[in-house]
C-alpha cells in the first residue's frame, strides 16, 4: 500500500518487542481510546541499561510500527540515551510517515519518556521535570 513505506509495513506486520514485562522497572502509557491510539511501554532496566523493552499498542498501522521501531531504538541502550530519543529519529528510522500520522511517532517518544519517568519515580532518582512533556503537549487530540 502506497500510504506507508516498506519499513513501516514491515514493523506493522512483524512488530518487534510486542508483549508485557512482569515486574517491569518502568511502565508508561500515553494516548487515549477516544483519539484512537494508546501505547503502553514496559522497561526492564539493569545497571542503567535498558535490558528489555516490550509494548502494547491500540492504534493504526503507523502507531504499531512507531511503537515497534521506538522499542528497537532503545533496546540495550543506556537510560540517558533512551531519554534523548526523539519522534524525528523514529520517523527517520521508519523511512518517513505521512504528515497526518506524525503524531504516532510523537506518541512513541512520549510513551518511552513516560516509562522512564515511572522508573525514576519508583527508584527515587532525581530528574529534570522539563524533560518529560505530558501527552497533552502533542496537541493531536485537540486538533
Amino acid at each position, binding site marked *: 500500500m502506497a500510504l506507508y513505506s516498506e519499513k513501516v509495513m514491515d514493523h506493522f506486520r512483524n512488530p518487534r518487542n510486542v508483549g508485557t514485562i512482569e515486574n517491569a522497572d518502568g511502565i508508561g502509557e500515553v494516548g487515549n481510546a477516544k483519539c484512537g491510539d494508546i501505547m503502553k511501554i514496559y522497561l526492564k532496566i539493569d545497571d542503567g541499561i535498558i535490558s528489555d523493552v516490550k509494548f502494547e499498542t491500540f492504534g493504526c498501522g*503507523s502507531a504499531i510500527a512507531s511503537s515497534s521501531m521506538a522499542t528497537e531504538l532503545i533496546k540495550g541502550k543506556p537510560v540517558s540515551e533512551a531519554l534523548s530519543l526523539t519522534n524525528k529519529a523514529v520517523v527517520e528510522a521508519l523511512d518517513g510517515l505521512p504528515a497526518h500520522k506524525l503524531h504516532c511517532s510523537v506518541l512513541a517518544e512520549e510513551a518511552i519518556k513516560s516509562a522512564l519517568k515511572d522508573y525514576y519515580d519508583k527508584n527515587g532518582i532525581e530528574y529534570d521535570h522539563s524533560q518529560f512533556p505530558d501527552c497533552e503537549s502533542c496537541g493531536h487530540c485537540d486538533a
Partner: protein
Amino acid sequence: MHIYADNAATTKMSKSAIDAMLPYFDVIYGNPSSLHSVGQKADEALVNARSRIAKQLGCEAKEITFTSGGSEADNQAIISAARIGEKKGKKHIISTAFEHHAVLHTLNKLEKEGFEVTLLDVHENGIVLPEQVADAVRDDTCLVTVMFANNEIGTIQPIKEIGQICRERGVLFHTDAVQAAGHIRIDVKEQNIDMLSLSAHKFHGPKGAGVLYAKKGIALTNLIEGGAQERGKRAGTENIPAVMGMAAALEDACSHIDENAKKISALRDRIIAGISEIPHSILNGDAEKRLPGNINFCFEGIEGESLLLLLDDKGVCASSGSACTSGSLDPSHVLLAIGRVHDVAHGSLRLSLSEENTEEEADYIIKSVKEVVEYLRSISPVWNDLINGKREFIIK
C-alpha cells in the same frame, strides 16, 4: 485468495457496461452538440440512454440530468431547492445526521448563507422515522433531503412515507440514492420522490457519471456555466461513453435486482452470523432494513485501520470508519450518529458485497476477520485492560 468486499466504495465494471461504452470512444465519437451526422449520431445515443435510464427510475427522459456523479447531483439538487425556497422566503432545510458529506457539506455552505438546517436523529438502528420529518416541517421549510440507504451502515430509510409527508406539506423532497440505485427498487413516482441522485460506479458502471432526476417544473440552478447542454442546466460536453455505460449498467442491475438481492443478502447474513461470534462485537445498523450487501461491525479494543491493512494482507479488501482511515481526528459521523462512542467507532469494519462474491469467500472473510481481530486484541493495551477488569466493556 483475493476478495473484493468494498463494493460500497466502488464496483468492478460489468462486461456489458464496458461493451456499451467502447463504440463511443472511436466509432461514434462526435459531439452531440454538432449539427453534422457524426455529432447527431452521438446525440441519438444520448437521447436513447436518457430514456432508458428514465424508464428504470419511473420518470420521463426530460427529468434526467446527467452529472459527473453522485456528489454533483446532490450538490445541484440541494442548491436548486434552496434557490427556489429563498425566492419564497423559505430558508429551512431538513435532513439527517448521517447523510453523505456531499449533502452535509452543501448544507453547511447554505447555513453560512443564512439557511437553517435541522438534522434529524437516526436512532441506534440507523433509521429515521417519517413522524420525525412530519414534526420538523415548518412553514418556511423548502427541502427535505434524506438518503435512500446509508453508505456506511446500509440502513434503508422509509422514503415513500417521507415523500408522502413532503407532498402533503408542499415541501420538495430529495433523496441521495447513490447506494440504493441498482440494488433496491426505485420508482420515483410511486415513492413520492421529487429529486434523486445516483452514481454509475456503484452498480458496475463507470466512474465519473451520475444522474440527477428532478421532477418536471423544478427549476435547476447551474453549478457549471457554459454551453447549453442538459437543457442549459449543466454545461460541458456530455461524457457519452460513460453515459452509455451507465445506461447499460443500470438496466443490467435493475433486471437482476431481485435475484441479486436474494443471493447477496444470503451471503451478507452468513457473514453477519459468523462475525457476530466474535465476543464484544456489534452489528451497526438495523439487521433487516439494510442493503443486501452491507455488513458493518464495531469491535471493542482494536482500531480499524490496522484491521483493514491486515485484512488486505490476507487478500480481503474492506473499509473502515476509523479516524485514521478518514484522515481526520474523528471517527465516522455515521457511527457517532447511531450512538457509538469514539472508543468503539474507531474499531469499525465495513464489508460490502456484490453478486460476484461466493459462499467460499464469505467463509474466508469470517475466518480472516476472526484471526485479525484476535491478533490485534492480543497486542492492545485497551483489550488487556478490558479483560483484566481495569476498564469497562462498552460492547457487552
